[in-house]
């Protein structure tokens, strides 16, 4: 039996009837039309599906859409304001923090979380903060550089 859910995504209200077994990532991509969060592994390993739930980074492939009822979600689409990239997005661009770009939405959401908790992380803290995110292109060094650049901006 379908259930009605009402939630806010990137500040906008959404109300839909969903099957309880629908995963949040499938709801975001197929119902809400937000294809920024990616599906890599669907087993809570790769982090490509990372979104903010109540301001905390979570993996939307290991969560039901019904669990987001009444909650606030932010996806990668919610970061750029008025056509201007978010400082973390800009830093990934400037520092070549991506190759194919598949992991990038998740990396950026995890970075937002990391910098929110720890505005000036060390290299080791960056690598720990991103341990839930895999880059199949293995461009980790540029990703760490991008996070450091974004941290510099945030502190400036």
């Amino acid at each position, binding site marked *: 039996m379908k259930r009605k859910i009402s939630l806010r995504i990137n500040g906008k209200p959404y109300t839909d009837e969903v099957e309880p*077994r629908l995963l949040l990532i499938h709801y975001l991509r197929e119902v809400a039309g937000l294809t920024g969060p990616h599906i890599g592994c669907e087993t809570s390993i790769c982090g490509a599906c990372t979104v903010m739930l109540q301001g905390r980074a979570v993996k939307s492939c*290991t969560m039901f859409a019904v669990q987001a009822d009444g909650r606030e979600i932010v996806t990668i689409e919610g970061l750029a304001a008025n056509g201007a990239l978010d400082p973390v997005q800009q830093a990934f661009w400037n520092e070549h923090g991506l190759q194919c770009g598949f992991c990038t939405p998740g990396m950026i959401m995890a970075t937002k979380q990391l910098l929110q908790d720890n505005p000036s992380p060390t290299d080791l803290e960056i690598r720990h903060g991103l341990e839930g995110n895999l880059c199949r292109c293995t461009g980790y060094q540029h990703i760490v550089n991008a996070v450091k650049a974004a941290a510099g901006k945030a502190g400036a």
Partner: protein
Amino acid sequence: MQAFEYANPSTLQEAVALLAPQRGQTDVLAGGTDLISLMKDYIHTPKRLVNIKNIQELEGIRASAGGLRIGALVTMDELARNAEVRASYKALADAAAGIPSPQIRHMGTVGGDLCQRPRCWYFRGGFGLLATDNGKPLVPDGENHYHAIFGGGPAYFVSASSLGPALVAMGARVKLVSAKGSREVAVKSFFVAPKDENTREIVLRPDEILSEILVPAPAVHSATYEVRQKEALDWPLAAASVALTMKGSVVAGAKVVMGHVAPIPWEAAAAEKALAGKTITAASAEAAGKAAVEDAQPLSRNAYKVQLASVAVKRALLEAVKGKA
């Protein structure tokens, strides 16, 4: 994934009324980080899920002179960051902080950590808790790299919970609530090494909800040390939680509990005995580590875990007294 009915109660009383006494009918849903994976693989196929995340009374950490009360819905992240827990219940804070990745710490709850199912790949592949095929046990001659080195079967999986050993070391209890009433169980007796396929690895009944964890006033020094393969998104290979009561600089009482080495958090009585009356030094910690693994029974491919467990005990002890007179 099989379809299911979704219930979303807002009180504990309503929630327990929705749970069936027979196994396999209903499941409790907290963060979902383990249960959803089990459902995707058809290891759990509940007819009804009871979401407990909207039950206010299961939230919150409360510290008092008598100890700590941790609501079942407290996340690993909240536990790891809590100032009181970090200051006075370090073994527990260490264990929570060790859960890999911010995403899992944000979503995973303490109740879910204690009730998570074993990660044994035979179990996850549908061969049951005792991992048998037509009555033949698969683990002793199989892919047993990550399996138990204590206990001697017939269950060879390792208890997956990182909080379990820390809570056993601290003498904690859990409160289990059903429609018929509630009971308190020592965390030590919450975990079970099943002897048959019909017994679960925890004493929680299908119609019960774990509502809170109760930790008595802390031992003076405690710590958890985990050995992990690289720093990857995986469970520890071996871990140890220790809690020490001191008389001056001498150990008056020690609890040493190893994790991820047996179907239950494994108490190292020999190590505890070896420490009594000693000061913690590199030598006494190493001796305790050796004593802890004296009666290990490794399988064909996991003898390496014996050394890791021994080192985990040594390092947890040294960590517990680090910077303290």
